[in-house]
C-alpha cells in the first residue's frame, strides 16, 4: 500500500518537474511546480514528517508559488514577449548526458550506507510537539537569524519595488 503511494507521488513529482522544465508559458510551469511540490509534501509525510508536510503545502504551494503566480499575472506577458529559446531541447539533452556521471557518483556514495527498513514512525516523531522542542532548544539562534533575514528581505523588496522619482 505504502509502495503504491510512493510510486504515485514520485511519478507526480517527476512529471511536475518535467512539465516545469518543458512548458514555454511561465504560468503553466508554475502550475506544474505546484503539482510537484504537493507530491513532495506527500513524500515528506511518508518519511514520517507530518508537520513538514503541512508546512510544505501551506507555505510552499500556498504562499510562495501563489506569490509567483500573482507576479506572473501582474506582469501580463504576451506570447511574443517571451524570450526566444531556439536550442532549448538540445541544451537539455546535452546537460542531461553530462549530469549522468554526477548522479552515478551520488548514488554510489549513498549505496555504501547499510540498508535498513524505514517504516513510518508513529506518534512523537515529526509531530508538532517534538518539532517545536527541537527547534527552540537546538536551533534557536538560526531561527532568530532567519527572522532577521526575512525582515531584511521584506524591507529590501519594498525598496526595490518603489517608484524611483529621480531616475524617472
Amino acid at each position: 500500500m505504502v509502495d503504491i503511494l510512493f510510486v504515485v507521488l514520485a511519478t507526480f513529482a517527476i512529471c511536475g518537474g518535467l512539465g516545469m522544465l518543458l512548458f514555454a508559458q511561465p504560468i503553466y510551469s508554475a502550475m506544474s511546480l505546484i503539482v510537484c511540490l504537493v507530491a513532495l509534501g506527500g513524500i515528506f509525510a511518508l518519511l514520517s514528517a507530518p508537520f513538514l508536510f503541512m508546512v510544505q503545502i501551506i507555505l510552499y504551494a500556498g504562499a510562495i508559488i501563489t506569490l509567483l503566480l500573482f507576479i506572473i499575472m501582474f506582469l501580463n506577458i504576451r506570447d511574443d514577449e517571451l524570450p526566444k529559446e531556439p536550442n532549448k531541447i538540445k541544451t537539455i539533452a546535452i546537460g542531461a548526458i553530462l549530469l549522468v556521471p554526477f548522479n552515478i557518483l551520488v548514488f554510489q556514495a549513498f549505496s555504501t550506507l547499510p540498508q535498513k527498513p524505514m517504516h513510518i514512525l508513529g506518534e512523537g516523531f515529526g509531530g508538532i510537539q517534538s518539532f517545536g522542542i527541537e527547534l527552540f532548544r537546538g536551533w534557536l539562534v538560526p531561527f532568530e537569524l532567519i527572522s532577521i533575514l526575512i525582515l531584511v528581505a521584506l524591507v529590501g523588496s519594498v525598496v526595490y519595488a518603489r517608484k524611483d522619482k529621480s531616475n524617472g
Partner: protein
Amino acid sequence: MQERTRVMAESLLSYVTLAMILFSIGFLGVISRKNVFIVYMSIELMLNAVSLIFVALGRYYETIEPQVIAMLIIAIAAAEAAVFLSMIVVLYRKKGSLDSDIFKVLAQKEFHG
C-alpha cells in the same frame, strides 16, 4: 547487499534517487531556459530536492534535526521569493523583457546605446 525483498517506500535509495532526479531537472532548468521565472522555479525545485535528501536521511538515522533544517530552508526560500520577484518586477519595468541574458547588466543607471 543484504536481502532484496524490501518494499521500495522503505529504502533510502529510492528517496535519494527521486531527489537526484528532481535536482537534475532543476539544474537543467537553470542552465537551459532563458525565462527568469523558469530559472527561479528551477532553483526552488533544487532547494526542495536537497531538503528531501535531508528529511530522508533524518528518517534513516531517526533524528528530527534535518526536519528543522528543511523548515529553515523553506523560510529562506520565502525570503528569496520576496526579493527575487520584486527584482524581476523592477527589471521588467526597466528592460521590458524576461530574457535572462539582458539581466547581465545589473547597474542602476541605464546605458542608452
